């Protein structure tokens, strides 16, 4: 097993861990953090798999994609946190009410 493949597997693991937390935890901050962990998992897969063979130089395109992805993730997190704070102010708790938990 090459190092790159190992990192890619870790990325898949992070993705699944985040997904589990997202479904199980009710608190919105935990859900938002779970998204960030999932995103990091995907980015790790992208970066790790950029190195196709043991001695080849890594492909720079996925790295550029990850940078774009990080920008998107930061803006999404900012929006999510703002919404969470407003919701907490309005309802008194940072959880989604009602049936059908995410």
């Amino acid at each position, binding site marked *: 097993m090459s190092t790159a493949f190992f990192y890619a597997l870790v990325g898949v693991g992070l*993705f699944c861990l985040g*997904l589990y937390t*997202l479904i199980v935890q009710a608190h*919105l901050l935990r*859900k938002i953090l779970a*998204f960030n962990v*999932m*995103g990091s998992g*995907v980015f790790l*897969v*992208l970066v790790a*798999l950029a190195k*196709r063979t043991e001695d080849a130089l890594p*492909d720079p*395109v*996925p790295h550029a*994609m990850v940078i*774009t*992805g990080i920008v*998107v993730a930061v*803006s*999404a997190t900012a*929006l*999510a946190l703002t*919404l*969470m704070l*407003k*919701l907490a102010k*309005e*309802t008194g708790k940072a959880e*989604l*009410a*009602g049936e*059908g938990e*995410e």
Partner: protein
Amino acid sequence: MAAIFLEIPWAVVLILLPLSGAMACFLWPAVAKSVGLVTVSMLALSVAGLVWQVMEYGVYRHAVGGWGAPLGIDLYADGLSLLMLAMTALVGLAVSIYATGYFEQPHAARFWPLWLLLLAALNALFLAADIFNLYVTLELMGLAAVALSALSGSRDALGGAMRYLLATLLGSLAYLFGVALLYHGFGSVDMAILGQRLEATPIVWAALALMTTGLALKTALFPFHFWLPPAHASAPAPVSAVLSALVVKASFYILLRLWLEIFGPLGVEGVETLLGLLGAAAVLWGSVQALRQTRLKLLVAYSTVAQIGYLFLAFPLAAGSGITAWNAVAYLALSHALAKAAMFLVAGNLLRFGGHDRIADLDRVVQRLPLTVTAFALAGVSIMGLPPSGGFIGKWLLLEAALQQGRWDLAVVMMLGGLLAAGYVFKVLGFAFTQAGVPHESKTVPASMEWAALLLAVAAIVLGFLAAPLLALVGIGAPFGISEVAP
């Protein structure tokens, strides 16, 4: 003069114009309304320009900054892109006219920048030629849409927006994972190149599963529709109209593109059958839920869940009847966009008028808001699929595809969906004629709001007479492939 008009890179204008408009609205909120209206009108002209360009020169491809496909970003427009862009421009124009009457300051200053950003994201999405660029535009669209749906700041709106944000982020992440796998497997994100290189390997199956699930979640395909009714019902009326008409169509468009260019040729009958089954379930479940609602906006939102189901019924039919099923999808998407936007605008009018949207308490609105109720009835004709309307042509083509292949099960679902739709449309119309038990104090509805709804509803009906030229337009560049089965 005409020559200059043909040389302008309209595709670039379509993205840059709303972006700069959004910035201008953000910087000068006092003039946001007029800047917004001017931008949206110019967008409609630019779409016309692009249509003309494509009809003159054929399929359009533009390498941004002069960097070509493998490394740079390409803009690409064929018949399907044009149809979606035209749909966006038309709905956008009507919703903008509506919004001038609907939003007062300070809400107007928040609405216009976000709305123009959403338009920029939608246009960029329909012009994107590679799957990573599609991801970026998908996220741009999602964030703008979530912010718009939280606009009123009420408890319901914030909860709905939060749920929507969680669903949309999860969908995009799954999609991005698929992009990562496809890039690793085949060394490109350009759809045309991927289509040529793709082979049936485990990586492709994983990418297919992740991307389809993510996009189905964003398109609110049953059983992933849980986020749609609360978000769409609690948003301000013009925002609900745009979310239902355009935003869910955008993620469906990506799924359709992936299918046509990348996954379809691999022969994935199992997945196609599953999508068809979920579509059928969505048609029935969404319609029954719509029939059970007591509030108009929720009724219209569940009707969206049902109508989305129709789009997915085409997947199991496409292999056997090819172009007919995809043509049906294009027609259904367009006519649903117009009719559903009209319905949400009508709901907004009734909400403004009576201060509530309880269906049973509609108080003789047919005499007091005749234009609005006419708009609802016309939009209802298209949603039910009665002739002459866009919805009729779309459902007819789909039914034809189903009957050609002897898929009676799907045909029965389509018929039942139509009957149930008639049920919920007439439920609303029935109460529009009667006097409510408790009379309400009514407010006046601005003429712009009534006419915008009527404009969209009439457009949905007129679509029923434009089948031949529209299908010819969609066929530019053969996005659905060359049909072996004669229609």
